[in-house]
C-alpha cells in the first residue's frame, strides 16, 4: 500500500485520515507475521550456527591443545590443576566424581547406577508404556493373615527423578564444555607469558567483576527449582494419562502421546474444546472490560482529585488507598455476601420490581445465579477494587505533565475536554502502554476477584456448559479458575487436561503480548527512560 507523504497526509480530512490509519494498521498485520516468521527462522539459523561453531571450537581445542588440555577432555579440571587453578580444578573434579558415582555406580542391589536406573524406569515417551515399572498391589501377608498393600513405583517420583537426571546430564555436558574452554584459555594466557587467575582472585572477583553471579545465584536457583522444573514437569504431564484414577502411586500412569490434545478439538457437550472456547471468550471480554473500565474511571478520579481548587486532596486519596490495604479476601468475600440473596444490597436490589421479576422468571434466588447480572456485577465490583491503584498511578503521571502545556493550550482557546483528549490522554497512553498490557494479562489471570466473589462453594453458579475437564464449569469462570478447580478438590481430577489448558493459556498470553509489544511505542527502548 502506498504511503502518503507528511504533506499529503495533512491534506486529508479527519475521516480520511482515520481510514488511512486503519488501512495502515491492517496492512501491517501480514508484515508482523513475516517478521515473526523471519525471527523464528533467524533464531534457528543462529542456533544452528552456534552449535556448528561450538563443535569446530572443541575440535580445534583438541587438535591444538597440549597434553594437559587434551587430558582435561576426560578428567575434569585437569588443565586447571596443570595451570595452577586449584580451586576451580577441585570443583570441576568433584563434579565429575559425583556425576559418575551417581550415574554409573550400582548401589542398593540394582545393576545400574542410580541415574541410569531412574532414566530406565521412566520409559520416556514410549507411548503405551507406564512411567515406572513395578505396579503396587495388595498381596497376601501370612504374618497379618490379610492382604496388605505392597508399594510399587510411584510414577510421579519416577518422572521427577528421571527429569532431574536429565537436567544433571545437561549440566554435566555444559560443565565439560566450560572446563575445556577454560583450559584452552589458560593455555593461551600462559603462552602469552601472563599469569592465570588464582583461586584467591577468583573468590575476590565474585564480589567485583563477577558480582552478578553472586547476586543472581540465589534467585536463579529458586526460579529454576520452583518454576522452571515444575513447568517442564507439567508440560510432560500433558503427554501422559495422569489423573485421579492413575495417580502414580496406587495406579501407575502411562505415556499416551498426543491423545489428550485431541480433546481440544472436541466441541460437543462437555468437550474440552467447547468449554475452552466459551471460557476463553468470557475471559477475554472480562479482561478487556476490567482493564479499561478501571483505567479510564481511575484516571477520571485522579484528574478530579488533582484539579486546581479542590481541597482535602490528601483525604480523598487516603480513603481510596485504605481499600488497598485491607486484604482482598476479606473485602471481596464480604461484598460477595452483600450482593447475595440475603445480603443487604442483594435484598434491596431484589425488591426493585424489574429485577425481582427477572430473577423470578428465571428461578434465580440471588443476583449471582444469573449469568449476565453476575458478569456485570463482577466488572462493577472490580472497578471498586481496581480504581485506587490506577488513581495512585495516574496521579503520579499527571503531575509529570508540564503545566505550561495546559496553559498554552488554554491561551489557544482549548476547553477542558480538548485538553484532556489532546494532552492528558495521549501522554497517559504513551507512558502507561506497558502497564496496560501487564494489567490486561493480570486480569486474564485474576483469580481472586472471580473465585472469591463467585467461584467458591458459597455461590452455586449456573452450569450450562456442563462439566469439562472433570469439573463443572460456571458462567463466570475464567480459564485460571477453571484450571484451579481442575487440579484441586475434584474427584475426577485430570492433571493432563489441566496441563493442556495451561499450555493454551500460555499461548494466548504469549500471542497477545507479542502483538501488543509490537504496537505500543513505549516498550521499544529500555534505555530511553534513563
Amino acid at each position, binding site marked *: 500500500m502506498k504511503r502518503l507523504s507528511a504533506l499529503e497526509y495533512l491534506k486529508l480530512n479527519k475521516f480520511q485520515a482515520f481510514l488511512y490509519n486503519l488501512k495502515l494498521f491492517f496492512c501491517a498485520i501480514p508484515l508482523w507475521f513475516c517478521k515473526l516468521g523471519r525471527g523464528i527462522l533467524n533464531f534457528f539459523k543462529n542456533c544452528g550456527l552456534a552449535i556448528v561453531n561450538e563443535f569446530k571450537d572443541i575440535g580445534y581445542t583438541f587438535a591444538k591443545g597440549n597434553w594437559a588440555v587434551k587430558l582435561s577432555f576426560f578428567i575434569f579440571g585437569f588443565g586447571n590443576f596443570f595451570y595452577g587453578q586449584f580451586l576451580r580444578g577441585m570443583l570441576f573434579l568433584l563434579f565429575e566424581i559425583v556425576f559418575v558415582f551417581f550415574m554409573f555406580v550400582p548401589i542398593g542391589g540394582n545393576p545400574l547406577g542410580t541415574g541410569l536406573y531412574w532414566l530406565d524406569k521412566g520409559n520416556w515417551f514410549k507411548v503405551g508404556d507406564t512411567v515406572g515399572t513395578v505396579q503396587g498391589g495388595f498381596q497376601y501377608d501370612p504374618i497379618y493373615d490379610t492382604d496388605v498393600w505392597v508399594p510399587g513405583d510411584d510414577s510421579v517420583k519416577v518422572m521427577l527423578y528421571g527429569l532431574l537426571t536429565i537436567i544433571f546430564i545437561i549440566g554435566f555436558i555444559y560443565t565439560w564444555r566450560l572446563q575445556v574452554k577454560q583450559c584452552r584459555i589458560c593455555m593461551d594466557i600462559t603462552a602469552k607469558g601472563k599469569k592465570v587467575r588464582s583461586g584467591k582472585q577468583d573468590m575476590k572477583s565474585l564480589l567485583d567483576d563477577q558480582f552478578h553471579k553472586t547476586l543472581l545465584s540465589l534467585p536463579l536457583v529458586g526460579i529454576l527449582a520452583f518454576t522452571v522444573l515444575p513447568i517442564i514437569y507439567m508440560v510432560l504431564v500433558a503427554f501422559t494419562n495422569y489423573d485421579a484414577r492413575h495417580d502414580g502411586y496406587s495406579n501407575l500412569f502411562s505415556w499416551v502421546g498426543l491423545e489428550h490434545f485431541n480433546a481440544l478439538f472436541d466441541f460437543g457437550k462437555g468437550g474440552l474444546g467447547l468449554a475452552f472456547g466459551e471460557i476463553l471468550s468470557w475471559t477475554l471480554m472480562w479482561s478487556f472490560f476490567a482493564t479499561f473500565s478501571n483505567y479510564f474511571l481511575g484516571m477520571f478520579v485522579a484528574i478530579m482529585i488533582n484539579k486546581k481548587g479542590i481541597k482535602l486532596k490528601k483525604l480523598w486519596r487516603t480513603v481510596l488507598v*485504605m481499600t488497598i490495604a485491607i486484604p482482598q479476601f476479606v473485602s471481596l468475600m464480604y461484598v460477595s455476601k452483600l450482593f447475595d440473596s440475603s445480603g443487604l444490597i442483594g435484598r434491596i436490589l431484589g425488591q426493585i420490581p424489574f429485577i425481582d421479576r427477572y430473577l423470578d422468571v428465571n428461578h434465580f434466588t440471588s443476583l449471582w445465579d444469573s449469568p449476565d447480572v453476575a458478569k456485570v456485577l463482577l466488572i462493577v465490583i472490580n472497578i471498586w477494587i481496581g480504581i485506587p491503584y490506577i488513581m495512585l498511578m495516574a496521579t503520579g503521571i499527571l503531575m509529570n505533565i508540564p503545566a505550561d502545556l495546559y496553559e498554552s493550550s488554554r491561551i489557544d482557546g482549548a476547553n477542558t475536554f480538548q485538553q484532556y483528549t489532546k494532552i492528558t490522554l495521549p501522554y497517559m497512553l504513551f507512558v502507561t502502554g506497558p502497564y496496560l498490557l501487564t494489567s490486561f494479562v493480570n486480569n486474564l489471570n485474576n483469580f481472586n476477584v472471580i473465585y472469591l466473589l463467585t467461584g467458591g462453594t458459597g455461590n452455586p453458579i449456573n452450569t450450562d456448559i456442563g462439566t469439562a475437564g472433570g469439573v463443572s464449569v460456571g458462567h463466570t469462570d475464567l480459564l485460571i479458575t477453571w*484450571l484451579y478447580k481442575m487440579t*484441586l478438590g475434584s474427584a475426577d481430577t485430570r492433571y493432563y487436561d489441566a496441563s493442556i489448558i495451561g499450555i493454551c493459556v500460555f499461548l494466548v498470553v504469549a500471542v497477545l503480548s507479542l502483538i501488543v509489544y509490537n504496537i505500543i511505542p513505549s516498550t521499544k527502548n529500555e534505555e530511553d527512560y534513563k
Partner: protein
Amino acid sequence: MKKTNDTTIHKTGLGARASRRLSNTVIYIILILITCIWLFPFFGIVLESFRVETTQQVPYLFPKEFGLDNYIRLFKETDFLKWFGNTAVMGIATAVLQTVFILSMSYVLSRLRFKGRKGLMNFMLILGMFPGFLTLILIYKVFSELGLTNEMAPVGLIIVYCASSGMGYYVSKGFFDTIPKSLDEAARVDGATRWQVFYKVIMPLSKPIIIYTVLMGFMAPWGDFMMANYIAHQTSDGMNVAVGMFEWLSRTNLNTHYTMFCAAGVIVAIPVVTVFLFLQKYYVEGVTGGAVKG
C-alpha cells in the same frame, strides 16, 4: 465595538468563575459519593462484627444490640488465633526473604551488564506467562514427601512465596534505573569494588524501594488464597487466615459464622492497615514509579 468586547471579556470572566464553582461543586459531590461507596463495606463489616442479636445476615446495617460476642467466640471456639499466628510468621519471613531475592535480581538486571542479561530477562518474561499455580501440583507432591504440608504448611508456603519471587523484579528495577549511572562510575574510579558500590552507594539511596518491597512481601500472605489453599488445605493447624475463614461463608456455615467472619476480618485488617498507613508514602512511590518504567 471596543465596549462590547470589554463586556464579553467581563462576562466570560464572571461566567468562568461561576462555571468553575459549579464544576467544583459537582466534583465535590462525586468525591463524597465515591468516598461513601468505597467506605460503605468497611463500615458494614465493622458494624456487623459487633452485632449480638443474630449471627445471620440481616436486612439492616446497624446492630440492635452491640457487644463483643463475636470476638469472644472467635478466640474461644475457632482456630483463628493459630491462623493469625501462621499468617503473621509467613508475612514477616516473606517480607525479609522476598526482599533479598527481588533486590538482588533487580539490581543485577538494572545496573550490571553481563553476557546473557537480555536473554535472562526475556526468559523470565516468557516464564511469567505460564499460569503459575500449575507448578503447585508438583511442588505439593514434593512438599508432602518432605513433610512441608499439614502442620508445616507455613514453612512450605514461605518457600513457595519466596523461591520464584525474583521474577517480580520489574518495579524495583524501574527504581534502580532512575539512579544516575555516574554515581557508580565515580565510585568505581575511586577504587570501589562492585560489592562496595552496591552496599555503600546504591543501597543507602534505595530506602523507598526497600520499604516498598518489604511492605509487598509482608502483605502477600495476608491476602493469598490461591496458593495457601493448595498447600495448606488439609489441617486447620497449617492454614493462613484466608483459607481458614473461607469455609465460614459456605452455604452450610453462613448462618452460624457470618458475624464471626466480620469480626475476624476486622482483626485481620488491623495489622495490615496499620503497617500500610505508616508506609503509605513508599507504596505510592513504588506504584507510580513502577508503572511508568514498565
